[in-house]
């Protein structure tokens, strides 16, 4: 299904990073990304797996347009002709406005959302009783859920997720994974999902990109042709083993 739709649709995200360097406070330069080429169509989900500190967040920041100091280019196209595309992002830390309540945080990011939509979203994320709390009164897991809900609230065309399910218990993570799948197919959002969890990747992604140690290069691409809804636990386990075998899994 995904495949069928993807065909004939112009690419939504074209990324080419020839090189990305950071200059540390000490003045030292180090390279973080090298030759990353990536092209995603409308509604396609790419998972990015790589060792801690390799450059995944940097990659997302470049896609989001937050870091323009690199060699290469990013092109984002909006839905239909709408430009710029609506973007939703979950940062690695919640990045909520501490002086606004949970509800206000959502509404500020998604001014177009109806009160009913916000309420439904809060309910889906188990946040109903926290709508009027300030972020400082939330646990980290709750705050991360708010950040995820915020990205959902904007009904994005482009969705950038940096470990969206970290700090959540397994049951909750599973349910939110489900919500994410629903959103992506509803909105046909082009999604980049950074994660350390192989299950996240196998359940959600259309393609999995494996990154090397710093400077990160793409060392493998695992395409998953089976549509998300049809993936069986056995199929997922098999893909997971494949991914782990390629060198980013839990075994030494």
């Amino acid at each position: 299904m995904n495949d069928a739709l993807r065909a004939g649709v112009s690419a939504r995200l074209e990324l080419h990073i020839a090189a990305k360097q950071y200059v540390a406070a000490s003045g030292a330069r180090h390279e973080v990304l090298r030759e990353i080429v990536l092209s995603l169509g409308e509604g396609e989900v790419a998972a990015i797996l790589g060792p801690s500190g390799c450059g995944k967040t940097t990659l997302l920041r470049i896609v989001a347009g937050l870091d323009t100091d690199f060699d290469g280019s990013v092109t984002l196209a909006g839905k239909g002709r709408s430009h710029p595309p609506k973007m939703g992002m979950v940062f690695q830390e919640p990045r909520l406005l501490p002086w606004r309540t949970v509800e206000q945080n959502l509404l500020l990011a998604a001014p177009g959302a109806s009160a009913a939509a916000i309420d439904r979203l809060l309910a889906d994320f188990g946040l109903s009783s926290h709508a009027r709390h300030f972020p400082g009164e939330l646990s980290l897991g709750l705050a991360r859920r708010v950040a995820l809900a915020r990205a959902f609230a904007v009904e994005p065309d482009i969705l950038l997720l940096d470990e969206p399910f970290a700090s959540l218990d397994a049951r909750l993570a599973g349910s939110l994974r489900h919500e994410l799948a629903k959103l992506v197919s509803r909105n046909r959002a082009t999604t980049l999902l950074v994660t350390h969890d192989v299950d996240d990747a196998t359940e959600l992604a259309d393609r999995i990109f494996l990154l090397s140690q710093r400077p990160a290069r793409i060392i493998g691409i695992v395409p998953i042709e089976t549509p998300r809804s049809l993936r069986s636990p056995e199929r997922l386990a098999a893909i997971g083993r494949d991914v782990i075998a390629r060198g980013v899994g839990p075994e030494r």
Partner: protein
Amino acid sequence: MLRLASLALFLVIWLVGTFALGERKLPGPPAVAATIVAEARSGALFANVGITLVRVVLAFVLAMAIGSALGLLMGRNRVADRLGDPWLVVLLNLPALVIIVLAYVWLGLTEVAAVAAVAVNKLPNTIVTVREGARALDRGLDEMGRVFAFSRWKKLRHIVLPQLAPYLAAAMRLGVSLIWKIVLVVELIGRPNGVGFEIGTAFQLFDMPRILAYSCTFVLIMLAIETLLVQPLERRASRWRLRTA
């Protein structure tokens, strides 16, 4: 309650001081209060305090508005900072007297000159404080605003201003007090009315009770504004901060 108690203590210490030093060296609260009443009866108090307050408010609004904008700009933009910095140092360290005299010489002995001189004296202070705040702005929240396509105004209101709040609070508190100090000099040198003018006249006669009467009236007004306006507002604005144990 604690504040009231503390204020009462202040009055007691003042009384004791008067007892120890004598009315001539430190007029006591009763003498000062009597003078306040007398000045109020004659209407002079209201006229003078009123006109001074108008000048204070005008200069305050001017200096805060322009100063905050410039401070924000200089805190966030390196080029603006480098360009503005020497001017800032100059303005900051020019004696109030020089600015006041120049203002009077250029703009005439007018209300405009008086208010302008005060505002210009306060301006660099606002800039310096707000600039520090702007430099300390959280980059993460700024990025969040960009990703979620916050408009300029939304960013300012919901991301920047709340972070600047403590700096603005400091700038405003200091602002009122500095402006008030300078208004006095401005009135002393070239205005025919106002609290500063009265204090200057009283000073020529070494009329300490009258000096203290006018000073205390202003202090009382500021105490009232603090208690009834500023602190409730501040409490509201910082509700999100967790009470430390």
